[in-house]
């Protein structure tokens, strides 16, 4: 931030505008206006473009609150988000710790890159790859039957656990990344001081390491929870018939049922939930920044 305040040329907004305008105009046209339009459409009975008569209505929101289906599905999606986030913490946090405090030098750099590399590769393809593993007669089934003396049938495909596994696989690198960043910033001498004052490993973990890495944990949790609540492709591919969630219902309104106003209302309710979650997480995140 030092460089920023040192910037001598304070010619202000007028000089900045020509450089800023193209990018922010683009964002306005493709992100902010669409989000506003979505709110607008969610109060309509029909799209004005189809030529059919339309009127303002609260019916789309009434549908959400009167039919328990939507609320149930939203709760199911929130639960899915919570479960996936917890698994990502349980799996990702220890890995981040080992990366930050055990591994050193080149091997740390290489392994860190290997962990976050899949995150930046194609998410759809990674979800699809689990189908090869989880289906009956798939790799997991074949491998377990080759090892075990008795016959078992593993067919996790199209089940709730399959959706969880796929989503955890997709998002755990995020948790490793954010926790690693805060963990490696912890001074080793703090840990040594705690140990030399007689604290056990567990006490140091509970009193020093976890509190200091909390911002990374919260950031990771928010960054995972939010997209998982809005996921639809993962439950569709891995969940099959059991994979009906809030996100898949929104998808249906736009690509199958063509009830766009209802879809817009459902999307907006999801957006509101997401904003509340991000707002709850922001004090912890701001403390980190």
């Amino acid at each position: 931030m030092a460089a920023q305040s040192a910037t001598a040329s304070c010619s202000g907004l007028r000089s900045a505008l020509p450089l800023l305008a193209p990018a922010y105009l683009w964002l306005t046209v493709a992100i902010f206006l669409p989000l506003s339009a979505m709110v607008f459409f969610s109060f309509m009975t029909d799209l004005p473009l189809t030529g059919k008569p339309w009127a303002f209505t609260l019916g789309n929101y009434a549908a959400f609150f009167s039919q328990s289906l939507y609320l149930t599905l939203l709760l199911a999606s929130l639960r899915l988000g919570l479960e996936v986030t917890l698994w990502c913490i349980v799996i990702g946090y220890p890995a981040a710790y080992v990366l930050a405090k055990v591994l050193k030098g080149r091997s740390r750099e290489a392994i860190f890159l290997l962990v976050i590399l899949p995150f930046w590769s194609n998410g759809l393809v990674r979800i699809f790859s689990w189908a090869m593993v989880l289906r009956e007669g798939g790799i997991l089934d074949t491998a377990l039957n080759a090892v075990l003396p008795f016959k078992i049938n593993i067919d996790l495909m199209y089940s709730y656990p399959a959706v969880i596994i796929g989503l955890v696989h997709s998002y755990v690198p995020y948790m490793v990344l954010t926790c690693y960043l805060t963990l490696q910033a912890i001074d080793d001498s703090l840990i040594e001081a705690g140990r030399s004052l007689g604290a056990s490993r567990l006490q140091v973990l509970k009193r020093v390491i976890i509190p200091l890495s909390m911002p990374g944990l919260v950031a990771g949790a928010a960054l995972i929870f939010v997209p998982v609540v809005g996921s639809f492709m993962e439950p569709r591919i891995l969940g099959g018939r059991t994979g009906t969630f809030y996100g898949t219902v929104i998808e249906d309104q736009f690509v199958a049922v063509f009830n766009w106003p209802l879809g817009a209302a459902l999307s907006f309710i999801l957006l509101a939930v997401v904003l509340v979650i991000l707002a709850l997480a922001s004090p912890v995140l701001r403390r980190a920044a």
Partner: protein
Amino acid sequence: MATTRILEGLGRLYIFLLLAFLYLPIIIMALMSFNVSPFYQLPFEWTTEWYASLWQNDQLIAATWNSLEIAIITTLISVVLGSAASLALYRYEFRGKKVLQALLFPPIAIPWLITGTAMLIFFFGVGIGRGLFAILLGHVALALPYVIVVVSARLQTFAPELEEAARSLGANQWQVTMRVTLPWIMSGVIAGGLFAFAVSFDQFVVSYFLSTPGQTTLPVEIYAAIRKGFTPEINAVSTIIIVVSMALMLLTARFFKFGGEK
């Protein structure tokens, strides 16, 4: 201490298991794309038949070209617009700057399902409709915040005195930018461009809502194929995609330190 060594050994083992969890499905998918059996049956028999048949699939090839074109145009536009915006945010102080910086986060943080459906409604409403142009509009908007964040991070390491020096030696604003500032932040600009390419090339959700049957991208085509049923052809094209996108990110890592250690 013996306990420490044991714990460290367990830690290494744990990381190895995590890497296995992350990579095994992808490796298995890739292997199955070279397997003879169309029903993924073992024992494994080597073939490149599925890759050969990709060449006959005109729909997939057309979608691949669309994906590449859109990713390249997205990269060019978002790098130019994004770098310009980063420079402005770096150089000038003005009211509302914090707001503009904060506005970069909604496109990243809001789930693509919401952004994608909102774009569909709005583009339909204003007459842009669906198709490749709409997809391009959306992709640039998704890529811009990443470019601005990455280039701004690089600009933080730039000393403004260098610009001052060039100016006092008689260089005009354009010369200062092109000859002094841009070379310094080039690695950030390249990393931002690679991010933009990856965001666009791997983008599924937004493309999905904005595509029409004739005008579609590769991930959308693959999703449609997966929902019809699994075939080794999907494995083959998926393997190509994952190799391309991982290679891209390795390249990005050369220009951008993810770990923030330096």
